[in-house]
């Protein structure tokens, strides 16, 4: 079924990462991603790997879910690793036809593969431990300074929330329409590519029609409740920073210091 998409899905649990302020989580994730790509030797890489493993454990999300989201990009990882293998400078240790593998190449490909894995794992911890509403809320707050450039940050955040909210609904709808057309003998599993694309028309048109209908209904419902955008809106759930957020910031600061020191002295 189409409903089995797990890449970045909220997993409710009672881990410490779930209770962190989402704004802090987003900022620290960005900082950590920069950190992951600023590791220049194995010691530094070891430190960030330890950080990622610790966050995965602390998230209290089953490892199976992480592996599932990894499955989607395994091909990308392998491809970049293999490509990097052949683009290293220096003395070749293995040479055959146009292929030249150097020590630097092996080094590069290990680094790039580990970095991508860490990147995906860490980003997944954010989406697994933060509900979509919290996440857009945090993004809205973080984008607030952009308001001085006349960017409507609230509207952007609202659009993101609505889009996320309707993903499962539309998937369900697609499933239903597919079944209904199959019941009328629609054949989506055989024929050449042109035939298969044509077979999508009976699914896409009703899907678009229903998406527009839903959008229209939602807009109507929002207007009925006098929704008028960001200015002057208060929130039901206020975000508060606490001691654990401070601890998280300190931990990332320490890791950063460790990585910098490793890069310079080792």
């Amino acid at each position, binding site marked *: 079924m189409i409903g089995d998409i797990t890449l970045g899905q909220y997993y409710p649990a009672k881990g410490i990462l779930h209770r962190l302020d989402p704004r802090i989580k987003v900022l620290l994730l960005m900082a950590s991603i920069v950190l992951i790509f600023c590791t220049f030797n194995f010691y530094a890489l070891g430190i960030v790997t330890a950080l990622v493993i610790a966050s995965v454990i602390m998230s209290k999300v089953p490892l199976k879910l992480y592996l599932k989201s990894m499955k989607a990009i395994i091909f990308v990882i392998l491809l970049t690793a293999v490509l990097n293998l052949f683009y290293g400078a220096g003395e070749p240790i293995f040479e055959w036809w146009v292929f030249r593998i150097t020590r630097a190449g092996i080094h590069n490909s290990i680094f790039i593969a580990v970095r991508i894995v860490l990147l995906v794992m860490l980003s997944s911890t954010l989406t697994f431990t933060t509900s979509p509403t919290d996440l857009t809320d945090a993004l809205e707050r973080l984008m607030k300074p952009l308001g001085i450039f006349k960017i409507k940050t609230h509207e952007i955040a609202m659009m993101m929330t609505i889009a996320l909210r309707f993903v499962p609904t539309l998937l369900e*709808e697609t499933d*239903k*329409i597919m*079944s*209904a*057309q*199959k*019941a*009328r*003998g*629609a*054949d989506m599993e055989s024929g050449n590519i042109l035939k298969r694309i044509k077979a999508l*028309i*009976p699914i896409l*048109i*009703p899907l678009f*029609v*229903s998406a527009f209908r839903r959008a229209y209904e939602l807009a109507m419902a929002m207007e009925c409740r006098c929704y008028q955008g960001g200015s002057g809106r208060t929130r039901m759930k206020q975000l508060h920073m606490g001691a654990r957020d401070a601890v998280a910031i300190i931990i990332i600061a320490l890791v950063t210091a460790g990585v910098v020191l490793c890069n310079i002295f080792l």
Partner: protein
Amino acid sequence: MSTLLKTENLCFTYAKGTPFEKQAVKNVNIEIKKGEVIGVIGHTGSGKSTLMQMLNGLIKPTSGTVYLGDTDIFENKKTLRDVRFRVGLVFQYPENQLFEETVRKDISFGPRNMGLPEEAIAKRVKSAAKFAGLKDELLDRSPFDLSGGEKRRAAIAGVIAMDPEILILDEPTAGLDPMGRDTLLAQIDAYHKARANTVLLVSHSMEDIARIADRVLVMYKGDCVMLQSPKEVFARAEELEQMGLRVPQITRITTLLREKGIPLSEGILTVDEAFAEITALLKKEGRI
């Protein structure tokens, strides 16, 4: 009459192997004869829709078999499509599946998939539209310009046009106004009588079921708990109530009248029946 559709220990479990696992249909054994009208009732989430989708091969059962005639419909994957032409399924809110430029083209989608010649398709569209109560001038309009009730009819015509031996309708009257419900139901009944085919009607309206069903199938938490005549099923009012169902309003009223000592017969299911009995009674007493 011979058995047309039969299920054997039919089970279906949603999201098997995950924490969200839910058994929607448990061990259903039913036999449906050719030409019968079966009313299917059950509380929301009782497994009616899942069962209906297994009967035409849209959902593969977790275990158990569906026999159409003598053949297991899941035996050969290639013939599944033919099964769907023989067992036509009209989904809930079928108007959401309309997609063509004109109503005529949309109704011909099914017959065209069957590979029929153009003349036969045109003929089928015409008769299907007539059975569904669609006026001829609507056929060349866009389905998206029709009213809600007309859209529903157009969608139902799209399945009728395949001329299925068994027609399954999943809550065809949901969301229609009382007039629309009555006429649509009458048309389904007329269609059944004209073609002498088998009809399965899922409905939340006991009145509808009482009006046209030969037998009533009651689903409760995935089990098929009853498959009997409407009179027998609606005589078990207490059991039905425990399952979140009820008997037709007129049956309840006549039962209450009987309890008050008014000599009406047992198991009155429709207003017409009640009307006839009560007027007969009043006449006998010389009051009218």
